[in-house]
């Protein structure tokens, strides 16, 4: 079960330093750059929070950690579906791969619906991005993440149509990156106060 027990065979020979990464190397460049962008936003959030701790704490209490957690469960399950689609397409079970991709997209849509209900509740209560600095970050970060969800859904739809091992693996990597960002975003906005 050790992660170091695998044979050292380069997955992408000819890609220089990127040749050791699994899947499409360019997708890893995108993943790394997205992680850096979000990390910079998280650092900015943390710095702003130090100057207005009471405001941020009080504002965070207006978010429901269970709704954010539910969305985490949905997105992680969607990630499992995508990973199983990669497994299926690798053994040429195209129909099964498409079924897993369909499940992943359905869960991605569910994530969007939950997020929409959450936004609607906040707007109905008069809470907008202009309310205060915390909600500026809340709407900005979650909307930026949601834009990635929408792009990921489009990618998943595309590879459901053009199903090949390389295509599915590339779209899956993007979708897992969306998972990863949400895993970091959830405690930052909903839990840590």
């Amino acid at each position, binding site marked *: 079960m050790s992660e170091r027990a695998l044979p050292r065979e380069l997955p992408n020979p000819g890609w220089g330093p990127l040749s050791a990464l699994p899947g499409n190397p360019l997708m890893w460049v995108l993943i790394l750059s997205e992680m850096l962008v979000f990390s910079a936003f998280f650092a900015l959030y943390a710095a702003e929070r130090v100057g207005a701790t009471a405001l941020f704490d009080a504002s965070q209490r207006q978010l429901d950690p269970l709704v954010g957690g539910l969305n985490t469960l949905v997105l992680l399950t969607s990630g499992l579906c995508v990973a199983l689609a990669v497994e299926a397409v690798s053994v040429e079970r195209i129909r099964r791969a498409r079924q897993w991709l369909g499940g992943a997209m359905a869960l991605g849509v569910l994530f969007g619906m939950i997020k929409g209900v959450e936004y609607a509740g906040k707007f109905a209560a008069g809470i907008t991005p202009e309310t205060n600095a915390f909600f500026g970050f809340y709407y900005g970060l979650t909307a930026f993440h949601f834009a990635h969800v929408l792009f990921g859904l489009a990618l998943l739809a595309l590879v459901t149509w053009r199903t090949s091992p390389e295509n599915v*693996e590339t779209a899956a990597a993007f979708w897992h990156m969306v998972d990863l960002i949400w895993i970091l975003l959830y405690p930052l906005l909903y839990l840590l106060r």
Partner: protein
Amino acid sequence: MTMLPGSRRLLATWATLMALTLFSMLSARLAPEDAQALPLWSAGLVIAATGFKAQRLLMVYLNLRAATPAWRGTFMGLVLLTLALIGAGVLAARLA
């Protein structure tokens, strides 16, 4: 294609991620209603659980276990740096 994790490992990882998320949700729900801030130990647990979830997602879902130690270290280092920044923000806000 590279060597994939396999369905059993994926399901075990998914179960771990679900359990850790439920643990985080529960810990937030169990915090006293009148408490403005989480106790530091609780915040530490949430950050540690988040780090472990990110590690599992990178290694298994994203299959980074098939990459070299340098790449694994780069991505995990970035996750740890991000979590350290978040943790430092929580700590600094508490001490301010």
